[in-house]
């Protein structure tokens, strides 16, 4: 393929120069691979799966609670009974096939967040940076912040996109019927982490989750890997969009004479973090040749258009040797697809992905035998994530007493499961910073507990083991969240404790406590917790006349409920 370096848009100064490029970049025609699945929003219709429950020493209720906690963000009032009626296996089948599950309530609730439904190009158009001239005026004092906000309202600025995405994540975690799908989307986003704060990623992150992650969350791993590899958010986050063959010299334009070259960042992480794992058997030479294979996979005007483009002139056409495979010269854009095929089918990838999934769904210390079976399913089905999940969640290990309540909830999980347990309602944003809506407020709480969503800087994503989340400061923050939630102090989130404790006689604190223990902890409280909470009731202040209640004294339900949500038992799933 003739190289026309003169027309190559040079991508330096974080894309600022891109705008100045006038000539369209060269596109590879001959070596174009199958149509990119990135644009597809709909996964291929899955083959039906059906779960057979293994023998387990857990009670029926425990198994249901376990599934609601692991395949979702915890039970809402009535969920246990609903699953019991439907049958646990049937419930799991439905969760594994989310496309067939109606989900109107969640879908309606996320309609109020327009940014997350737009393409990158549309986002760039609708949420631009404020005019630098205006910012300069603010800096020089010529214009006030308030005037700037009138000309460039906060809800039309780029940061709004990630904020809406956070709110949507919490809204879906709380409301969606497709609980497993939401858990899987969270898992895979974390696996293929990007940080919304890095440069142009802020315009791309919502499209990344919607178009690259979500459609494949229970699909084929290869499709997921390819979709992330080609997505501008990943290309930008791990710098591949700027990586070129080592000997490229820019021939024209403002960067004329610039020596470009290879950037190893993505090549290393796709092997270490996305597929093989750090001990998966690759060398520094593999890193270099994978980087060479991906040269030219780039972004068209990241701050104006933000679409994938293959720049043939930037591609290294030489032969590559990757993990024992030879990529012959002249592969062009297909080189990168070859790498995706090699990596997604490598046995180390099956093991690495199986280990991470078992850690997420079963235990911090993944049982080796289950990892091996899940990895075998991965290999036998060419990386069918749904099938791997069936192996994991229908295993005796998954339903073992050792796994039951063995995981400590992450900040996202504690926040979502608390709201679900109390059947909390999220108000939509009502315009202006005063009423940002419940989704935003909950996302802020998740951040405060140590997991600012879509803002994890290192490509490793967030850890998935208890040690990472349990420390003194974090526990305090969890207790404070519980106190805030039950007192309806989280803006836009409303819990109705009166409804939650139902018919219990509020003048009899022990009756109120019993109802809370059943509805929130499903009778899983230890005798010690029960007696500690009961001891709180001996406090003469526990029954008090509230300001708005002239009737008989009322139990301090808010704080009792907070104690239950902040209890050690509720930190587990």
């Amino acid at each position, binding site marked *: 393929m003739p190289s026309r370096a003169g027309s190559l848009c040079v991508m*330096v*100064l*974080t894309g600022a120069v891109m705008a100045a490029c006038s000539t369209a970049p060269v596109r590879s025609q001959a070596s174009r691979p199958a149509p990119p699945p990135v644009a597809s929003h709909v996964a291929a219709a899955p083959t039906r799966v059906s779960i057979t429950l293994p023998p387990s020493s857990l009670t029926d209720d425990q198994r249901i609670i376990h599934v609601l906690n692991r395949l979702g963000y915890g039970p809402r009032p009535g969920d246990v009974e609903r699953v019991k009626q439907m049958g646990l296996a049937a419930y799991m089948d439905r969760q594994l096939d989310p496309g067939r599950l109606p989900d109107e309530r969640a879908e309606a609730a996320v309609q109020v967040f327009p940014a997350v439904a737009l393409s990158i190009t549309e986002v760039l158009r609708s949420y631009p940076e404020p005019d630098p001239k205006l910012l300069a005026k603010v800096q020089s004092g010529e214009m006030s912040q308030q005037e700037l906000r009138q000309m460039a309202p906060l809800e039309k600025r780029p940061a709004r996109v990630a904020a809406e995405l956070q709110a949507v994540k919490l809204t879906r975690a709380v409301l969606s019927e497709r609980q497993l799908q939401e858990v899987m989307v969270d898992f895979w986003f974390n696996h293929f982490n990007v940080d919304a704060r890095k440069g142009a990623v802020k315009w791309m992150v919502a499209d990344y989750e919607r178009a690259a992650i979500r459609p494949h969350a229970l699909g084929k791993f290869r499709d997921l890997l390819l979709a992330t590899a080609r997505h501008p958010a990943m290309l930008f986050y791990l*710098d591949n969009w*700027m*990586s070129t063959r080592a000997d*490229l010299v820019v021939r024209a334009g403002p960067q004329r004479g610039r*020596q*470009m*070259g*290879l*950037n*190893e*960042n993505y090549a*290393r992480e796709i092997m*270490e*973090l996305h597929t093989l794992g*750090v001990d998966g058997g690759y060398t*520094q030479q593999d890193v270099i040749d994978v980087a060479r294979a991906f040269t030219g996979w780039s972004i068209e005007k990241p701050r104006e258009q933000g679409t994938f483009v293959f720049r043939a002139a930037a591609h290294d056409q030489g032969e590559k040797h990757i993990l024992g495979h030879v990529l012959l010269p002249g592969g062009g854009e297909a080189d990168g697809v070859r790498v995706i095929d090699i990596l997604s089918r490598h046995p180390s990838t099956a093991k690495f992905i199986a280990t991470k999934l078992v850690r997420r769904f079963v235990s911090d210390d993944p049982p080796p035998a289950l990892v091996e079976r899940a990895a075998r399913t991965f290999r036998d089905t060419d990386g069918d994530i749904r099938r791997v999940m069936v192996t994991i969640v229908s295993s005796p290990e998954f339903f073992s007493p050792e796994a039951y309540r063995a995981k*400590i909830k992450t900040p996202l999980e504690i926040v979502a499961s608390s709201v679900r347990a109390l059947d909390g309602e999220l108000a939509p944003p009502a315009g202006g910073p005063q009423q940002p809506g419940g989704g935003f407020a909950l996302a802020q709480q998740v951040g*405060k*507990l*140590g997991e600012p969503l879509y803002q994890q*800087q*290192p490509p490793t994503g967030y850890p998935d083991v*208890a*040690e*990472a989340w*349990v*420390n*003194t*400061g*974090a*526990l*305090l*923050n969890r*207790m*404070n969240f519980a106190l805030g939630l039950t*007192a309806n*102090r989280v803006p836009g989130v409303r819990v109705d404790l009166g409804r939650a404790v139902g018919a219990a006689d509020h003048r009899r604190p022990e009756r109120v406590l019993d109802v809370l223990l059943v509805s929130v902890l499903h009778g899983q409280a*230890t005798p*010690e*917790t029960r007696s*500690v*909470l009961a001891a*709180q009731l001996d*406090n003469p*202040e*526990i029954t*008090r006349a*509230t300001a708005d209640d002239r009737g008989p004294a009322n139990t*301090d339900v*808010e*704080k009792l409920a*907070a*104690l239950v949500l*902040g209890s*050690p038992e509720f*930190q*587990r799933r």
Partner: protein
Amino acid sequence: MRCCTRRSFMKAGALALLGVGSIPRFLVRTAYAQGTAVRPKVLIAVFQRGAVDGLSMIVPHGDPSYYSSRGSIAVARPAAGNSEATVDLDGLFGLHPALSPLKPLWDDRRLAIVHACGSPDTTRSHFDAQDYMESGTPGVKTTPDGWLARGLQATSVDGASPFRAVAMGTQLPRAFRGDIGAVAMGAVADFDVKQEMKGSTAGGVNARRGFESLYEQGVHDILHGTGRETFDAVKMLKAANPQRFPPEHGAQYPRGRLGDSLKQIAQLIKADVGLEVAFADVGGWDTHANQGNERGPLALRFAEFSQSLAALDRDLGERMRDVVVLTMSEFGRTVRENGNRGTDHGHATAMLVLGGPVKGGRVVGKWPGLAREQLYEGRDLAVTTDFRQLFAEVAERHLGVPSAAPLFPGFTTNPARHPGVLV
């Protein structure tokens, strides 16, 4: 799962014997205030996460290969009167101009630099390299605890303060993992159960007491153990009230997380809560593209970094006699500029040691050189000082960790091999 630690059993046992359930057992603060106890030595570890470019931070301007290798990202040679050029230190090395707030400490011999420092392990993975540096066991992933936790355990005494080890942030760093009850806090002000809210009626369930009782039960697991430590710490911090100490001596911390962290660490030191090791981290060093030279994104990171450290030094004043600040980063970056005016993952980097006990005004460690044949794997600055030698010197000489303590399993160190950064 971590469980049933020796320390929590000991604490629980002591509590039961004394029958003092909810009374804070830590009255060290009062003891210090009355001058009856010796103030502890303090180590502040600052982790530059993302692999800082040591060759831009401490510029080897006297190495003939530096300017030929680095192209557009080289930091300009020292030039008299030019505040945007490298600040010469000793003819071979100089500070990046954005680090000039640290020059007075160098002149005062309270800043030492260890260059070409790093890990013997060859990994270029951020995650693994940080893990190895914090566990103190390069190449070994199964080490359960961190090096700072092991050091603190070796010097542990009964009735020690719950604030011996404090990390600023919402997550506990790997270096503190272990049976020492390290505290992680996002902010000093948030470290309490916030039960009485504006407008709420007084009385009712005492949430703090309720939570405390819940976590004080007999179960020994990671949650309960941590919960017990939490409430000990809350009580002590309330009594010590570190927020009453504003920055002193005109110290001005820059905006940003590192400045906030160091400001609060200074408050904890002044409040005499028994702090021995503080941990702060600061990101933004993974400069794969457009890192800049005298100016640019990396220069801005250096400015925040150096202004934060200089403010801490000024704020603590006389108290710096007992304080050592040690900076670290998981590895350095390629000697050559990459195709995007940045640098890729490399090998050795530079680490700073500052404070009263420091034998400063010196760049220590053998300089391996930047000529191609001198480079590690033909591309990176070679490691001539194993980071464990440096960490061991600080732990042993400053914190008084007995040298026999298994700070770094499988690694032998002795004073003769220490880089010699402390007086």
